[in-house]
């Protein structure tokens, strides 16, 4: 296990820690009102105008400056929409407004992943079982090995290039995530079940593909190709950005994982402690926070996933103070440093834990069935 930078807490301390956070959440929720509603509408406005501007510029995309600007603007719009509007609205952060435009049950985002699948795999599974090995399927997305506690398999040798692919097509990875294909491969989920869950995934995929790669290009008439290309690049820009921000949320250097057994006795306070230890923040200016969907405040988001994201900055001050008082590590750093930590994990845990290269090679050889007789316990070294 990764050594913890947080001191162990007694049962009473865990309860008190939880009570302080509950109190903080209730204080913020009670204060929600017109300013928060105005904020989310401003974000909506920015999304709509940037999308209109981006698409309009791409229609003139035969001119290189218009193409570049249009592509960037559309990419920015998709980032804002996915991260600061869609993700947060679908969490129910603005359900209290009782406005169907900003309601978790009715919102659908500009992303290949359907809202319903996202709400299940992300809001429920990931946010409830955060960083629990075997329960939080976001921990490596079913095919990446990012922690020494995860068992190694030779396929992990491929994870550096696979991660790059995932970054480029992140929305498609997310779209397939809820189908749990890796469980299908392991025989834990039947093909029939997967096929049963497939139609809504395909429906959303078709909608997204038709929109960006048929309808808008066709509307542009002779400028079909520049529009199609611009849409493609804009989607990739959003994918890479979302990948980077999201991986920095749980796979940075000092993030901890948990065995499934914690669930047996976990109290509300302990759930908070797990969220704190399992998440990491990014430092940056206001614009950076907005573009990250305030997932730069990943800790606050995981403590209070349904508190409006525009409140995370003020909440963070208090969370940091409370964490300090209880001797808990508050994992934050620059984007560069945290992303570096993520990359290190992707590279490091592509290889088995055992440090000496020769031993690694022999483990690989055994796993690949090239040699026999290497004791599997050496993996745990």
């Amino acid at each position, binding site marked *: 296990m990764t050594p913890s930078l947080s001191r162990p807490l007694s049962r009473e301390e865990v309860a008190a820690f939880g009570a302080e956070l509950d109190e903080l959440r209730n204080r913020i929720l009670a204060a929600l009102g017109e300013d928060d509603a105005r904020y989310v509408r401003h974000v909506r406005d920015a999304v709509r105008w940037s999308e209109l501007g981006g698409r309009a510029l791409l229609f003139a995309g035969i001119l290189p400056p218009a193409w570049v600007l249009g592509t960037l603007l559309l990419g920015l719009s998709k980032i804002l929409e996915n991260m600061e509007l869609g993700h947060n609205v679908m969490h129910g952060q603005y359900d209290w*407004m009782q406005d169907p435009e900003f*309601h978790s049950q009715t919102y659908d985002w500009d992303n290949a992943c359907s809202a319903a699948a996202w709400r299940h795999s992300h809001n429920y599974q990931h946010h*409830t079982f955060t960083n629990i090995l075997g329960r939080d399927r976001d921990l490596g997305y079913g095919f990446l090995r990012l922690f020494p506690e995860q068992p190694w398999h030779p396929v992990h040798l491929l994870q550096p290039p696979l991660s790059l692919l995932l970054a480029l097509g992140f929305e498609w990875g997310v779209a397939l995530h809820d189908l749990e294909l890796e469980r299908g491969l392991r025989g834990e989920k039947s093909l029939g079940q997967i096929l049963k869950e497939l139609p809504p995934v395909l429906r959303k995929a078709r909608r997204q593909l038709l929109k960006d790669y048929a309808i808008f290009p066709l509307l542009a008439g002779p400028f079909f190709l520049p529009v199609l290309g611009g849409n493609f690049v804009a989607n990739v820009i959003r994918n890479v950005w979302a990948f980077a921000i999201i991986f920095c949320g749980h796979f940075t250097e000092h993030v901890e994982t948990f065995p499934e057994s914690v669930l047996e006795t976990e109290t509300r306070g302990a759930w908070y402690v797990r969220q704190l230890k399992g998440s990491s923040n990014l430092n940056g200016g206001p614009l950076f926070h907005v573009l990250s969907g305030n997932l730069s405040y990943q800790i606050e988001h995981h403590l209070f996933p349904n508190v409006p994201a525009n409140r995370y900055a003020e909440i963070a001050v208090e969370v940091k103070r409370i964490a300090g008082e209880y001797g808990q590590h508050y994992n934050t750093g620059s984007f560069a440093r945290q992303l570096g930590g993520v990359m290190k994990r992707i590279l490091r845990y592509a290889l088995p834990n055992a440090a000496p290269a020769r031993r690694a090679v022999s483990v690989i050889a055994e796993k690949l069935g090239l040699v026999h007789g290497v004791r599997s316990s050496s993996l745990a070294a």
Partner: protein
Amino acid sequence: MPHPSPLASFAAPLTRLLAAAVPRPFLDEHVFDFYASQLGPQLSLNRILARVEAIRPEARDVLSFVLRPNPNWRGFRAGQHVQLTVEIDGVRHTRVYSPSNAPAAGGTVTLTVKRHPGGRVSGFLHERVAVGDIVELSPAFGDFVLPDPVPAKLLMIAGGSGITPLMAMLRDLLARRIDTDIVFAHYAHTHRDLIFADELVRLGERHPNLHLHFGVTAVSALPGELSGRFSGEHLDRIAPDPAERRTLVCGPRGLLDMVNALWQDRGYPEPPCGEAFTPAVVTATDTPEIVLRFARSFTDVRGDTGVPLLVQAETAGLRPRSGCRMGICHSCTCRKQSGAVKNLLSGAITAEPDEDIRLCISVPVSDVTLDL
């Protein structure tokens, strides 16, 4: 009369055309509405957005709001209600009102609203809504309407702000020049609370088929008026032939109960048609005896004030969507149609009608109706 801006009147058919041109799966209503609203504040694909055209006082603490809805409005029948939605401090609130105008009156909808002490929406409407503001309406609904064909003799009994649907019917009848004999009794606490009193008097002078009676319950009546709450004695005085009349009642629950009991006692053949018009004041009950109503499943069960609604729904054999069971994932979000619930995380009690709640962290504190 103010007209919509030329841009809006040009843009309305244009947006309609656009909406028809975009294939349905690619038409996101909210995206469409955002761009449409830039052309005119009332332009919307489906929503009924109405502009406040006039506000006028009708009685003490009673204002009428004349609303002009956009073309998504499909009209109403006199006596029906609409949901009015306004946003107060970032939160949308919905209340049900009956239009008080005749449906034919130039496409407008007049909502007559009495201000209730502590009433969030009625207070907002009275204090903060101005001419030119935009509010949202639902399509009209409800079965409390004039019988068709209109009977030869009618008796209408209105209590307080319950007059609004009956006023719509009365105006409708008179506007359509239907020669029905109408006995119209209108009760309020005091003379200052008699909504539409002046207009009723004017109508009574103009239409010999309208026989008007005012009643006051909290002050002494003037000569010719009815004194105190509705009673058999009142009925004998205003309508000696009640068995021959179709009776329509709207007012507080007590008025309806009184009328029903009287009709039963006297064995009149036709039961009165009535609607209780009681302001939605739901508060936590002390009694553990509460009823949970799952509207979509047509299931009523005895409720428990100590157990989350999710568990109680599951115990009742329902399978609502659920997830974390700790209030974070919003999977079990469900529309509460009425009743008061307590949020287990914050301890807050909310009694708003038509409000979304998370079943896993909500316990009922009164009778509750859920859209499940």
